[in-house]
């Protein structure tokens, strides 16, 4: 009996090492198209092994198992019922729950009266990252599902932003001061409240178009929070798995920020608002609208077509109709490609997911660097609900707020169709000279209706 009780932690630790190796292999395979499904399976297997071995000798198994079952049912229902267009907000929500779990772990560890300076500091940091991830993700969820409509310049936003900075200051104070005084419950309660409100203030001022960056960053936070919880609990699998998530989130954040040609600091703390007015030059020229039937005639004669989708395609839920149009064009002998900008949509890879859902083969999905060099041989570029990612100001107007951002240079194509609801500007608040170019034709109206119109013309 005595030997057995010593051995359980050892067996658990060895199993955690195996799980860590599986996690590492899994996330590596998740980064390649051919092995991604298997990679996800491996990481799920690692999770199962780690959780199963932890369950040996836990206190109050009945309660905790029922907790797992409740979580499993709720999580599965959400995951299986969610529409592919709602994936961004769902990822944000799950992310928030992960953050909340680490927040609760830190809270519980505080009640255990941390003994050393280090332990106390770890409790505070884990609590802060977990808490900010939780409420920040909830705000991101609200913004993405359009349930939360608070302008980023409003008074409420400013209050919460201020609270965020106060929370940071208080966090520093608590890390360096609390170890030397008696831990008071009131003090800790203030920190909890500040951190939760601060998370709201962290995400609230960030605009919808910058969401891909914020989601990746929150993703990274939830991993880092888990890694810190691992330090707190002396648990190596938590540290390894958490760090991997932290790293992958960080990489995505950097990719997204680069695709906007902005620094992460600028996205989080400045936004576009400060530079909006300078770019409203008046001599824009004339707009050339086009009807569906005329657009059809041009498309029918085109030998190569590039489709550039944006958030507008997601809003109009037009991905299936777009795929249908693509197929009809291909039957007609036209070469069809899709130009996907990394930040099109509301999360990293948003357009890829939507088009994959609509059964578009992923080898016709191209990145800006692949399509830009051959743009001048493209007969028609069809821009569906994208704006800033095709704005030529980014390459032509040094004074523009988005100057330097890598774009899909559709203005170099022979003809450009822009499907758009109205003449409003994109999230950056910058006018788009593309709409006034001589080779541009505007197809006004709901994207889905316009494309269905084209589809039925093709079928006739």
């Amino acid at each position, binding site marked *: 009996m005595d030997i057995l009780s010593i051995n359980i932690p050892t067996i658990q630790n060895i199993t955690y090492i195996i799980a860590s190796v599986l*996690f590492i292999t899994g*996330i590596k395979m*998740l980064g390649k*198209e051919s092995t*991604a*499904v298997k990679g*996800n399976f491996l*990481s799920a297997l690692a999770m199962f092994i*780690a*959780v199963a071995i*932890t369950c040996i000798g*836990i206190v109050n198994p009945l309660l905790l198992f029922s*907790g797992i079952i*409740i*979580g*499993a049912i709720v*999580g599965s229902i959400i*995951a*299986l019922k*969610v529409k592919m267009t709602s*994936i961004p907000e769902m*990822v944000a929500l799950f*992310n928030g*729950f*992960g953050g*909340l*779990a*680490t927040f609760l*772990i830190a809270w519980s*560890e505080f*009640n255990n009266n941390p003994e*050393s300076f*280090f332990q106390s500091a770890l409790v505070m940091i884990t609590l802060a990252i977990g808490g900010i991830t939780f409420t920040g993700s909830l705000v991101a969820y609200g913004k993405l599902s359009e349930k939360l409509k608070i302008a980023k310049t409003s008074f409420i936003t400013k209050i919460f932003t201020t609270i965020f900075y106060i929370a940071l200051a208080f966090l520093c104070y608590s890390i360096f001061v609390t170890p030397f005084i008696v831990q008071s419950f009131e003090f800790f309660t203030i920190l909890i409240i500040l951190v939760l409100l601060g998370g709201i203030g962290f995400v609230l001022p960030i605009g919808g178009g910058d969401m891909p960056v914020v989601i990746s960053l929150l*993703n990274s936070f939830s*991993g880092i*929070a*888990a890694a810190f919880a*691992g*330090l707190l609990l002396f*648990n190596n699998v938590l540290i*390894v*798995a958490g*760090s*991997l*998530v932290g*790293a*992958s989130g960080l*990489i*995505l954040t950097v*990719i997204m920020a680069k695709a906007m040609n902005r620094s992460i600091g600028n996205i989080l703390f400045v936004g576009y608002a400060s530079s909006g007015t300078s770019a409203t030059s008046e001599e824009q020229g004339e707009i050339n609208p086009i009807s569906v039937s005329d657009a059809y005639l041009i498309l029918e004669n085109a030998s190569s077509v590039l489709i550039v989708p944006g958030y507008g395609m997601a809003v109009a839920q037009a991905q299936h109709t777009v795929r249908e149009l693509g197929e009809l064009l291909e039957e007609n002998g036209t070469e069809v490609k899709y130009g996907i900008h*990394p930040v099109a949509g509301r*999360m*990293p*890879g948003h357009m*890829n*997911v939507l088009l*994959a859902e609509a059964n578009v*083969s*992923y*080898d016709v999905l191209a990145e800006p660097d692949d399509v830009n060099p051959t743009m001048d041989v493209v007969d028609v570029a069809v821009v569906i609900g994208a704006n800033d990612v095709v704005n030529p100001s980014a390459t032509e107007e040094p004074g523009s707020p988005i100057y330097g951002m890598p774009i899909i240079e559709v203005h170099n194509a022979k003809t450009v169709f822009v499907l758009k609801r109205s003449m409003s500007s994109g999230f950056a608040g910058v006018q788009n000279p593309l709409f006034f170019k001589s080779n541009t034709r505007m197809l006004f109206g709901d994207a889905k209706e316009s494309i269905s119109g084209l589809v039925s013309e093709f079928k006739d």
Partner: protein
Amino acid sequence: METYMLLGFVLILSIYLGLELISKVPSTLHTPLMSGANAISGIALVGALVLSQDGDLQTTLAFLAVVFASINVFGGYLVTNRMLKMFKKK
């Protein structure tokens, strides 16, 4: 203190390993990678399971942590799998 040093070492190495492993990911996989990584962050479940349960508050905290981490784990893996199944080459 020595344990912390050792664990800190593991932390730094793992982050570095993660950065090296994932640095070149095709944009098709951005969303699945994010959501798959999100599921992995549900590893907090392991931490939640070993929390102490002295008194009602501690038990409640542990229970809630288990529930939310489980939602993260199950939801995350299922939705990632659903998404990856959609990606195919013709």
